């Protein structure tokens, strides 16, 4: 099939609060559901794994709510104008209601029988929104119309956080700017309050969010200046009153009440979760250092857990005693990806800016952050207008032993630059700072690359940096002469090169490391990396050089450059002549490290197109126009663990490496030849199936039926071996799923485990005999079981042993009872 663009990480949550499944109390059954891009993710609270992806919406999911009448179902709304009802346990869409206009937020009420509330744009008015209730028709089919709308409130805010429903759905509150409106459903009473717009003493009364007390008539609102107001008596136009809680120094991003309403949680840009007790400004608890600004807070319905969604796409799960429990983090959204997409050669993880001042290592396979390396090592202060240092450049040596980072303060005129070199320590399995170079260049560093050849060993490692101060510098490792130094080597400058006092913009080593190409504005210069002689220059005016790269493998004699004026040039290094050039506005030029292919992404008339070519032929290998609507800023080839088998000739370039893109909205995308169903990670599917059932009499019964079925299969002539494995698998499963601390000793388990894997002829026959005997009489069956002193017997007892820790052993009489039941016909159970 055709190549598809697949989102694979970094999709934002965009202001939709996460939802806990209703029974998060039960161990093993807690789900956290949250909107992520076009999907709803179902996440297991306990195992920290994403279990299921509810996909089906064609645009951003803007709101998710549990069905108040069935807690196993979930409503979701999306910008594509549909409301979907899901069975999130199985990941099946049950119904789709088409509303038509964009849906910006979704609310459900237990008291509203079969209608939900959504925020839609008002017709004929720009940027005004209204809250409407949608009648969900009870039709038979899957796709239904939800066109029966009735307006509840006019002129509401577009965010889901700007509307809240009060205790038992008695009223609805909406906030916008400095206005608060309350509508009482029963009394049909509408009240509006407004705060003063005057910003006195740094105060800013604009509302940012609203929540309602679950049991009392109290509204809590968050404000842009960090205040929280608690409104009461708001059914009275005059005698309404509010009290103020103030801790946050900047906007209160979200609020959440606990189950009973005794605690109120608030969060903001400070990355601190504040818990207020009993509406008192004096009693409050803090959970600081959550890493990044809090965007949304949601509480589980039993109040045991709460979770915060952060602006950088991280999710933190927090215990009721305000203890940090765990976090779910995929690709961290940073303010600005300045480092580019770099692949860590060691872990094959994508490396880019993470938290401010940190470098994140993002595992593409597991959609998880491997770790975050603090580069700047300074406390980040959330304050507008404060100039802080941030990471701008990152380079890895070929084997990942050295990491070079450049950080600079945000001052434009006189940047404070630091070049740091990190060495990967095998003992600690992390990067250790080796050399810190202050002000390596007098102006911004534009590019940086390592020369590192496996054949030449460690000594060959050279780092080149280019700067706007019109020079490039070569850094080499030197033996440390100081005997007191902890390390044997450090880095120092070896050579400074310049060309006609032009600003150096890019640098690149050839594959064998013998040549260094440095671009100086309009010119590309090629230097011998041994003698540092200028070999030749290439120039193709007009336009400054934007990107350069050498060809690889068979094409290593070519040098590719892209210019500002939209030219892609290929130079032959042997003839020092222009091989070919093409008119293309290249934004991203990325060579594949494992093949000759080079990917170029162009940006033209608001769409990105991908061109893949080999330098030796001017005709692209592959063209995909309109790759995506967002602007692609960065791309990276990530080597595959094993080459993929690709049938089509066209996509052969994807065999060894996979191409990833990062758009300006910081969504990570990749190209896939597989269809969507295939791509879904098999691990999650497995998990969905093997919900290990607790051992109850009922499950034993079911177990018997399964065995019967297996027997039937056997009769139908299925291979015996597979059958046996199916028989044995529960034991192995039990073994693997029982918590380690309740397992018996390994020596004891070993035989059981081995035996369970054995395909013993004797055993199989015993099984058959047992089943046959079972038909005849209870007594006989007992006998046969006792007579078997073989592996089967042992497995059974071990089975009991294992389960005995969790469930009580069945007493003898119960066992007899069960056996009696077993004789009856329960074939009807198998009907479902």
């Amino acid at each position, binding site marked *: 099939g055709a190549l598809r663009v697949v989102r694979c990480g970094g999709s934002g949550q965009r202001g939709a609060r996460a939802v806990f499944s209703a029974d998060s109390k039960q161990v093993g059954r807690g789900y956290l559901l949250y909107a992520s891009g076009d999907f709803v993710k179902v996440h297991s609270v306990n195992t920290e794994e994403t279990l299921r992806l509810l996909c089906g919406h064609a645009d951003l999911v803007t709101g998710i709510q549990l069905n108040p009448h069935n807690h196993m179902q979930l409503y979701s709304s999306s910008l594509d104008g549909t409301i979907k009802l899901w069975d999130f346990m199985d990941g099946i869409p049950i119904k789709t209601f088409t509303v038509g206009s964009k849906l910006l937020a979704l609310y459900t009420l237990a008291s509203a029988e079969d209608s939900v509330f959504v925020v839609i744009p008002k017709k004929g008015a720009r940027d005004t929104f209204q809250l409407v209730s949608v009648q969900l028709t009870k039709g038979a089919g899957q796709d239904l119309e939800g066109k029966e709308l009735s307006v509840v409130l006019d002129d509401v805010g577009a965010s889901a956080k700007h509307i809240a429903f009060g205790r038992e759905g*008695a009223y609805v509150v909406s906030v916008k700017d400095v206005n608060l409106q309350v509508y009482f459903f029963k009394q049909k009473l509408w009240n509006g309050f407004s705060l003063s717009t005057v910003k006195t003493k740094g105060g800013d009364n604009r509302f940012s969010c609203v929540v309602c007390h679950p049991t*009392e*008539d109290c509204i809590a609102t968050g404000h842009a200046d960090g205040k929280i107001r608690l409104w009461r008596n708001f059914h009275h136009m005059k005698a309404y009153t509010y009290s103020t809680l103030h801790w946050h120094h900047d906007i209160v991003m979200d609020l959440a009440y606990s189950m009973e309403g005794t605690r109120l949680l608030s969060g903001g840009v400070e990355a601190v979760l504040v818990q207020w007790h009993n509406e008192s400004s004096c009693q409050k608890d803090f959970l600081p250092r959550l890493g990044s600004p809090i965007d949304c807070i949601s509480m589980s319905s039993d109040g045991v857990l709460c979770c915060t969604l952060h602006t950088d796409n991280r999710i933190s799960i927090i215990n009721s005693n305000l203890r940090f429990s765990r976090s779910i983090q995929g690709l961290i959204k940073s303010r600005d990806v300045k480092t580019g997409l770099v692949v860590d050669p060691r872990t094959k993880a994508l490396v880019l800016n993470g938290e401010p001042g940190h470098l994140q290592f993002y595992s593409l396979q597991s959609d998880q952050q491997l770790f975050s390396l603090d580069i700047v090592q300074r406390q980040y202060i959330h304050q507008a207008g404060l100039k802080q240092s941030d990471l701008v450049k990152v380079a890895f040596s070929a084997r990942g032993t050295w990491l070079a980072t450049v950080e600079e303060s945000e001052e434009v005129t006189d940047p404070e630059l630091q070049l740091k070199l990190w060495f990967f320590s095998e003992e600690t399995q992390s990067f250790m700072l080796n050399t810190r170079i202050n002000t390596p260049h007098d102006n911004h560093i534009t590019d940086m690359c390592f020369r590192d050849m496996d054949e030449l060993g460690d000594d060959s490692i050279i780092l080149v940096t280019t700067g706007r101060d019109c020079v490039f510098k070569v850094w080499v490792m030197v033996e440390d002469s100081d005997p007191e130094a902890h390390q044997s080597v450090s880095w120092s400058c070896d050579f400074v090169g310049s060309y006609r006092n032009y600003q150096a913009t890019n640098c690149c080593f050839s594959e064998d490391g013998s040549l260094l190409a440095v671009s100086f504005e309009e010119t590309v210069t090629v230097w011998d990396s041994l003698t540092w002689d200028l070999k030749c220059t290439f120039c193709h005016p007009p336009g400054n050089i934007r990107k350069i790269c050498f060809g690889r493998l068979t094409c290593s004699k070519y040098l590719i450059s892209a210019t500002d004026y939209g030219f892609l040039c290929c130079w032959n290094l042997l003839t020092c002549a222009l091989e070919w050039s093409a008119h293309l506005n290249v934004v991203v030029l990325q060579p594949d490290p494992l093949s000759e292919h080079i990917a170029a992404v162009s940006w033209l008339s608001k769409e990105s197109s991908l061109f893949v070519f080999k330098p030796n032929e001017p005709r692209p290998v592959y063209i995909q126009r309109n790759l995506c609507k967002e602007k692609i800023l960065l791309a990276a080839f990530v080597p595959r663990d094993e080459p993929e088998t690709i049938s089509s000739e066209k996509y052969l370039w994807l065999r060894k490496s996979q191409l990833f893109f990062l758009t300006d909205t910081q969504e990570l995308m990749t190209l896939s030849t597989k269809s969507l169903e295939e791509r879904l990670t098999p691990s999650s599917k497995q998990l969905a199936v093997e919900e290990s059932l607790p051992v109850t009499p009922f499950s034993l019964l079911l177990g018997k039926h399964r065995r019967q079925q297996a027997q039937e299969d056997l009769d139908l002539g299925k291979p015996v071996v597979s059958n046996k494995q199916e028989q044995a698998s529960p034991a192995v499963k039990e073994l693997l799923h029982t918590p380690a601390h309740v397992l018996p000793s390994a020596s004891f388990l070993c035989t059981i485990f081995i035996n369970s894997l054995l395909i013993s002829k004797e055993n199989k026959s015993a099984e058959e005999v047992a089943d046959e005997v079972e038909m005849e009489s209870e007594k006989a069956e007992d006998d046969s079981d006792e007579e078997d002193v073989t592996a089967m017997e042992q497995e059974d007892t071990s089975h009991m042993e294992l389960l005995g820790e969790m469930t009580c052993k069945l007493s003898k009489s119960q066992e007899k009872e069960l056996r009696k039941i077993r004789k009856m016909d329960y074939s009807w159970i198998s009907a479902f």
Partner: protein
Amino acid sequence: CLACHPRGARLALARTDGAVEVYNFAANYFQEKVIPGHEARSVESLCWAAGDRLFGAGLGGDITEFDLSGLSAARGADGGGGPIWSMVANGTGSQLAIGCEDGSVKIFQVVPGGIQFERNLDRRKGRVLCLSWHPSDTHIAAGSIDFFRVIDVTSGQTVQRIMLNHHVEKAKRECVVWAIALLSGGTVVSADSFGRVQFWDWERATLAESHTVSTSAVLSLAVSEKEDSIVVGTSTGATYQLQLLPVRLGGQEKRWVRTKPFQFHSHDVRAVAHSPTALISGGLDAQLVIRPLMEKMQKKGYEAALRKFTFPHRRLVSCARKARLLLFQFSQYLELWRLGSTEETGKDGEVLPLCRMPEHLVQLKSKGPEHIYCSCVSPCGTWLGYSTASRFQLYRVRCDGDGVSLSKVPKVPKLLPPAYQLQFSADSDRLFVASARGSVHIFQLLEPGGCKHLHTLRPPSGCSEAVYLLAPSTDGHWLAAVSGDWAIHIYNLKCFKHHCVVPAYDCAVSALAIHPSTNNLVIAYSDQQLFEFSIPEKQYTSWSRALQSRGLPDDSTLLMNQSTLKQLPETARKRQLHAFKICKKFQPLLFMDLLDKNCLVVVERPIMDFKTQLPLPVQQKKFGT
């Protein structure tokens, strides 16, 4: 400064120097009466009882009744229990309960012409800092250090004693119950030094609710008449309102909720009061703040505005126009200054260089513990008079070159009661002394230093209140006098006869003056109304009537200042012309007078000037500082 007690329409206030002031709610919170302080008097507690009688009690151990028409402390009675920390009147105003240093609570009966000791209630160790009567007069709650108790009035026994420092870990510190209130439902509200406001069911001795409103002490507490709102003042200068609100709309269950915080004071809020429509607080920063409750106001406007009273509503500065002298009145001394002068002229907004610096001529200390009631300097600058509660003094000022000498005028006629207001005539040969019962004494000043009583003017219908404002006409024909009942009497000075009464207007007169050329009396009332009354015609002038029908320009009217007007084109300027010249560059102004045709003297009193004299406020960490 301490204790505000509203009953009906008045608010009594006592300051730390012993001064007692009465504010009138109906007259726009006008400072109606001032009883100057006394060194030996401290007033810890004030209460209204038996109608309009005002009682004060203090650390001196005496209970004092204040004579509000004579503006003096009238009768006293010894409390007999050492320093008195608190005093409250019961619901009917017939009994006073006092809490003493020795831990006793005593009941006094209010009888005509004084008070009478009735009995002692159960005495326990520990000074009684605060008291509260149950609205039905059956019980008294008394707050002490670490505990409060509830006393049955009929038996005089303590029926409940509740410790307050029980629940606090830092119990080593003592917990001072600064204020207490006994609500009709049997709830005791206590405010303590741990910053808590607690609600107790005293019969079961259980804590119903506890609100920690502040990290520092809660010093004062007041309950509204309906018992649905409480205001508390803390030592950080913040006041908080607590309201009894339904938990669910329309539901029966109600709970106290801390609602609005106000930060109007920089220092301890020593006293709070809860009028039906406003929260009133007074603190160590010498300010009285009245915060109307918006929900009780019919409309937005002047009524609903926040009021801060920092300065007295009286004249403390007098000016000798011809001699260019200013006399400043302080609580126990007077200062005489000579104004500087300049010979240069300049443009709008320029500060002119002085050719002669202002000069402090003399400081005159009053003798005795009493504070000065009033003072005045004559227009020619040769006479100076002041009065305390018991004495009236007149001095002759002699300026010879640089030196200034004061000589006391001998044989000044004894005046009892003394003067409430002094005013010299324009030609400085007569002195008008405002006195009690609506009377005005006229003295003839004699060179080289003597005076003689000329006449006493009295309103024909009689009056019990003292005269508090005087205005003589420049030509010496007329004298207008305002007494405490707000009646303005005009006297003819040529024949010393009562001329007429200005038609009664139901508001306090805040200032009045007689126009030098037309002899029209201009009256300013405390409700921001201005009237012009023609003395010869005995009626309001047509301008006044026109003004009444049109009203003064309010805030919304666009009044351009002079510099903006100048920049406008001719036609537009004519349209925008108005009678006002507005200058907004000054800090609070105490006094203003016209020296000559193009010279105006204003006395500015920056708030920072006396803030620096106050003790340091409670240290508070403020974010961002």
